[in-house]
C-alpha cells in the first residue's frame, strides 16, 4: 500500500454562532490505523466527521486527505479520493430495495453513473460488487427487501455496506452500533473486525467494548478539543479522561 498519509488536520475549527463545536483540532492519521474517537455527548465528534467528509465547511484550519488539501472541496470530490462515511442517524435510500441501495453505492465512483441510454441491468460488474459487499455484511439474503422494511440492526449493516461499496481507503464510522442491542453490537463489532486491514478507519463509538476492541489508538474529544490521544491503555489510565468521561456517570 501507499505510504501517503490518509488524513491530516491542522487547527480545524467549526463555530456555530458563539458555540465552538470543534476548536482547533490537530490530527495525523497513519495508513492502516484504527482510531476511535470518544467523548461525551456534544463533544463535537460528529461535527468533526462532518468537517472531514465535507458535509460542513470549517470556520478555520486545514484538512489534507491523501496529500490533497480538501479544506474547501465538496464532499463528492473527497469521496473520489477514497473517503467514505456512515451516518449516526441511518441514512439509506428507504424506498429502494437493498440491492438498488448497493448499486447506487457501487456505481458512485464509476464514470458510467451518467450513462442514460443503457440499462443499469447491463452493468454486471456493479451487480457482482454490490452482492459481494452484501455477502460480507451478512445481508446476502435480503437483496430484494425494501430498505425501510429491514430491522434496525440490518439497516445499520446496510449503512456500513453502502460505505464499503466504493472500496474506500479511509472510512469514517459514526457510531455504527447506535440503537443496537448488546447482542447486535457484538455482531457489528465482529463485522468491523473483518474489514480489510489496509482501510484506515476512524470510528466514533459510545460502546467502549466496541471502541477499545477495534482501535489501536484512541482520541478523546471534549468541548471541541482533543484532551487525550494515545493507546487504549494510556487513555484509560488518563486521570482527566476518567474524570470527565469514563468514570463519572
Amino acid at each position, binding site marked *: 500500500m501507499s505510504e501517503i498519509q490518509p488524513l491530516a488536520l491542522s487547527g480545524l475549527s467549526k463555530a456555530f454562532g458563539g458555540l465552538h463545536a470543534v476548536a482547533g483540532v490537530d490530527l495525523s492519521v497513519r495508513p492502516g490505523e484504527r482510531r476511535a474517537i470518544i467523548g461525551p455527548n456534544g463533544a463535537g465528534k460528529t461535527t468533526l466527521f462532518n468537517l472531514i467528509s*465535507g458535509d460542513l465547511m470549517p470556520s478555520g484550519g486545514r484538512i489534507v486527505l491523501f496529500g490533497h488539501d480538501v479544506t474547501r472541496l465538496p464532499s463528492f470530490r473527497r469521496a473520489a479520493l477514497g473517503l467514505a462515511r456512515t451516518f449516526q442517524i441511518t441514512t439509506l*435510500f*428507504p424506498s429502494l430495495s437493498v440491492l*438498488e441501495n448497493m448499486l447506487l453505492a457501487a*456505481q458512485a*465512483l464509476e464514470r458510467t*453513473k*451518467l450513462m442514460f441510454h443503457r440499462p443499469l441491468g447491463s452493468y454486471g460488474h456493479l451487480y457482482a460488487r454490490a452482492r459481494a459487499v452484501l455477502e460480507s455484511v451478512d445481508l446476502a439474503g435480503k437483496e430484494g427487501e425494501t430498505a425501510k422494511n429491514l430491522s434496525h440492526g440490518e439497516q445499520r449493516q446496510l449503512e456500513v455496506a453502502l460505505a464499503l461499496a466504493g472500496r474506500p481507503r479511509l472510512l469514517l464510522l459514526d457510531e455504527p452500533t447506535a440503537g443496537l442491542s448488546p447482542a447486535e453490537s457484538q455482531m457489528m463489532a465482529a463485522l468491523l473486525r473483518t474489514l480489510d486491514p489496509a482501510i484506515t478507519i476512524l470510528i466514533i463509538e459510545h460502546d467502549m467494548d466496541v471502541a477499545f476492541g477495534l482501535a489501536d489508538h484512541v482520541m478523546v474529544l471534549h468541548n471541541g478539543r482533543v484532551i487525550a490521544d494515545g493507546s487504549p491503555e494510556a487513555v484509560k489510565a488518563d486521570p482527566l479522561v476518567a474524570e470527565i468521561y469514563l468514570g463519572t456517570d
Partner: protein
Amino acid sequence: MPGAARRGGWVVAGLGTAAVLLAAAPLFLSSYPLTLLTQALIYAIFAMSLDILLGYTGLPSLGHAAYFGVGAYAVAILATEFRAGFWTCLVAAVAAAILAGALFGPLAIRAVGTYFLMITLALGMLVWGLAFRWVSVTKGDNGISGLERPTLGPWSFADPTAFYFLSLVTFVVSAACLVVVVRSPFGMSLMGIRESEARMRSLGYNVWLHKYLAFMLAAAFAGVAGFLWAYYNGFVSPVEVQLVTSVEALLMVALGGSGTLVGPALGAGLIVFLKNFVSVYTKRWLLILGGVYICVILFAPGGIIGALKRRPR
C-alpha cells in the same frame, strides 16, 4: 418471485391492450373524442416530463408550464412569422425549452422542498409575464393565432386523424426515451437523490449536476409537448404558461402515481377528459380540480398506480 412475475405479466398485457386500442382508436371514435384523445396524449408527454422531476428526482416544480409554453411559443412565432417547417419548429421548440431550463435550473436547484416549489413558481410567473407583456414578440394577451397544422414530406397533418397519429407516435417515442433514461444508471441516480441527497453526496455523486441534467431533460420533453400543443390548438397565448397549467400537470402526476411514468400518462388522460366533461356543465373547473387534488392526497397518496400496486399483496 411469482407475484412479481405475474404482476409483470399484467403490466405487459395492460400496455399491449392500451397500444392496440390507441392505434385503432380512429376506427371507432368520432372526431370529438379523437380530438380529446389527441389532447390527452400531448398532456401525457407533458406530465411524464414533470414526473422526471417530481417522481424520480423528488423536485416538485410548480412552474413546469414555462417550458411547455416556451416550446409552444417557439413554434407559433417561427411558423407564423417565418413559415418554418416541421423539423425546424420541433428542433427550435426543444432547444428553446432546454435553454430556458438551462437558465432557470441553477436558480431553482439551489433550493429544496417548499423553497424549490416557490422558486419554480416565481420563474413560471416570469415566463407568463414575458408572454403577457412582451407584446412585440408574443402579441401579449391576444396570443398568436393562425397556426396551420404542419406537413412532413408527403404527409399532411391537417386532418384530425393524421394529427392524432402524429401525437401518438410522438408520445410513444417520448415515453420510450424516458423509460430508457429512468432504467439507466443516471435514472437510478435520480431516484437516489429523491431518497437521500446527503447519502448521494457522501457516496461521491455531484448531486447538483445530476439535478441540473434532470431539469433540462424534463424541460426538453415539456418542449416536445408544447410543440404538439401549438399545432393542435392553432393558437398560443399566455394561458399556456399560466400557473393553472403547471398545477394541472402536477395533479396529473399525483393522480396517476408519481415516479412511474405510466401513471402520469394515465393521469393526464383522466384530467383531460374530466376537464372537458365538466366544462360542459359548469365553469367552475378549478373548484373541481382542487377537489380532485384533495381526494388524491387524502385517499390515494400513491395515485392510481400506487393503489393498484398495493392491491395484490
